[in-house]
């Protein structure tokens, strides 16, 4: 009786997992072994790991994803630190998260309006007598916009881990004569490490394949693996190659997960 109740309780979750997590991944892996003529083959993987194009693209994607993650940490960490000390901190954090309520495409178009030739930023430059800058379609603008979009996802876990730090730790470190800098580097940063790590996990992987931004803001001068996936699925209908890139992305996600979780487990055990 009890067991059947338990199975009943688990079934919907198991079904969910099988339908929406396991089977899509299995399908991607399955498709990655077929060429355009629907024959079974390993050639997609061979091509991926022997072609200069795909390897450069992977290197590019990792580099851009790294930079986007780095900049979002650099901006998010001090911001989270300041907000966690403020009086109405819940309100402030809400304001930081607010942009996630707006559709990604709309945000991208808003940035086009800001950064374009006759955009707001250039108008301000001209007002101060500075020459007009070409900002759209540069690496810098791509990283800026991508980091802007990822910041809420980086700031939330960091902020949560900061508010979890007991005030007494900070007081204790002060009592023991630590300077503000020492308190930050020896107490706050180590204690918020789990937050930073989950922030990295959430931000890094999507940044590997931001194909829409790389076209709208990067003008396809920034080519990531996402661009190739889009092309294989929509233009050339080569689902095999597209899936192969998908599998590579999944594997790199697993690697990032392993790299960012080992330390935490060791400490807990």
């Amino acid at each position, binding site marked *: 009786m009890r067991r059947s109740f338990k199975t009943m309780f688990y079934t919907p979750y198991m079904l969910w997992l099988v339908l929406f997590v396991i089977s899509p991944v299995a399908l991607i892996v399955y498709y990655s072994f077929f060429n*355009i003529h629907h024959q079974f083959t390993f050639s997609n993987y061979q091509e991926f790991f022997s072609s200069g*194009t795909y390897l450069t693209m992977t290197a590019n994607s990792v580099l851009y994803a790294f930079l986007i993650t780095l900049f979002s940490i650099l901006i998010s960490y001090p911001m989270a630190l300041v907000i966690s000390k403020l009086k109405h901190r819940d309100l402030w954090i809400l304001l930081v998260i607010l942009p996630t309520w707006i559709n990604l495409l709309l945000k991208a178009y808003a940035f086009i309006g800001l950064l374009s030739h006759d955009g707001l930023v250039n108008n301000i430059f001209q007002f101060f007598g500075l020459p007009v800058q*070409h900002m*759209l379609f540069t690496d810098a603008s791509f990283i800026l916009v991508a980091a802007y979009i990822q910041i809420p996802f980086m700031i939330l876990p960091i902020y949560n881990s900061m508010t979890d730090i007991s005030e007494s730790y900070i007081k204790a470190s002060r009592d023991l004569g630590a300077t503000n800098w020492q308190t930050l580097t020896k107490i706050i940063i180590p204690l918020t490490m789990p937050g930073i790590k989950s922030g990295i996990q959430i931000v890094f992987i999507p940044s590997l394949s931001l194909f829409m931004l790389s*076209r*709208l803001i990067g003008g396809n001068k920034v*080519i990531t693996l996402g661009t*190739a996936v889009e*092309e294989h699925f929509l233009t050339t209908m080569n689902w095999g190659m597209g899936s192969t890139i998908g599998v590579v992305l999944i594997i790199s996600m697993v690697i990032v997960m392993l790299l960012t979780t080992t330390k935490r487990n060791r400490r807990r055990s």
Partner: protein
Amino acid sequence: MKKFAMVFIAILAICAGLAYGSNQLTKSTGDSGNKVLNLYNWGDYIDPNLLTKFQKETGYHVNVDTFDSNEAMYTKVQQGGTNYDLTVPSDYMVQKMKADHLLVPLDKSKLTGLNNYGASFMNKSFDPGNKYSIPYFWGTLGIIYNDQDVKTGSLEHWNQLWSKKYRNDIMLIDSARDIMGFSLISMGHSVNTTNSREMIAAKDKLNRLSPNVKAVVADEIKMYMAEGEAPVAVDWSGEATEMMSQNAHLHYVVPTEGSNMWFDNLVIPKTAKHYKAIYAFLNFMSKPENAAQNARYIGYSTPNTAAFKLLPKKVREDKQFYPPQKVIDKLQVYRNLSAQKVQQYNDLYLEFKMNK
């Protein structure tokens, strides 16, 4: 929480009510009755006044459903469950749909006014003898420039794009066949070449264009050009029409050494049911006065030569959209290539995009 749930349910109920209402309304005009024609067309690609006129003349009501890409239209027709009587694929898609047995051949004995169409626009490689398709509009691939930055008439050939003058000035439409195509033409090769050596040479030549390329973008290119983000672009004439209607400084050129020529065509998909209405509509659209009215509304080039003669002089003499015959003779239509060659074109194009 309870309030929230109430509001949520209220919104759902209103949406469901509206959806039901709109469904009833479309049903009452009926797409299952006999006096109808179901047209599956690109968005805003026919003069609505023509549809009213057609109904007045013949009694058939036209239901229009729209799509935004050949591929989306193909998938919907192929999957079935629709009852479209006519649709408007581009050239290569006609060839693909024909190969996949999705088209019904035209019964020429029921068609009138076929001789209104110009010889340059009929019997093209994608549908020899026009067994399945009637051209609806046609256009080209060309260069758009802004006369505030580029002297009017100074940019007329593909090879000029490689000039140092245009460093970081050019926007390209994100389309493998078109970009590889103009590089091939600039070297005197066919846009349908399957010769790997020619294709690689075209890619190498494109790599040398990279310093001049500001961005490779899709539909946004219209907005960017209209706003003056870049002085030069490579795009289709149809898109150029839209940009030029927003910015009077823009001009369109079809290089005299040749370019691509594209067609949108009326075809009967496998799902068709109302054949009387279909032929009535095809004949109605072939009439010069109707084709001319449609061309004036859409602004694209009409393949209907009799209709062309009815257009205002200013439009007829516009070399941008009606290039002289000796240029038309040099235009090439894309052929549907094998899956491997399509892949090779796209791979080379991707390599060009990665090149900085």
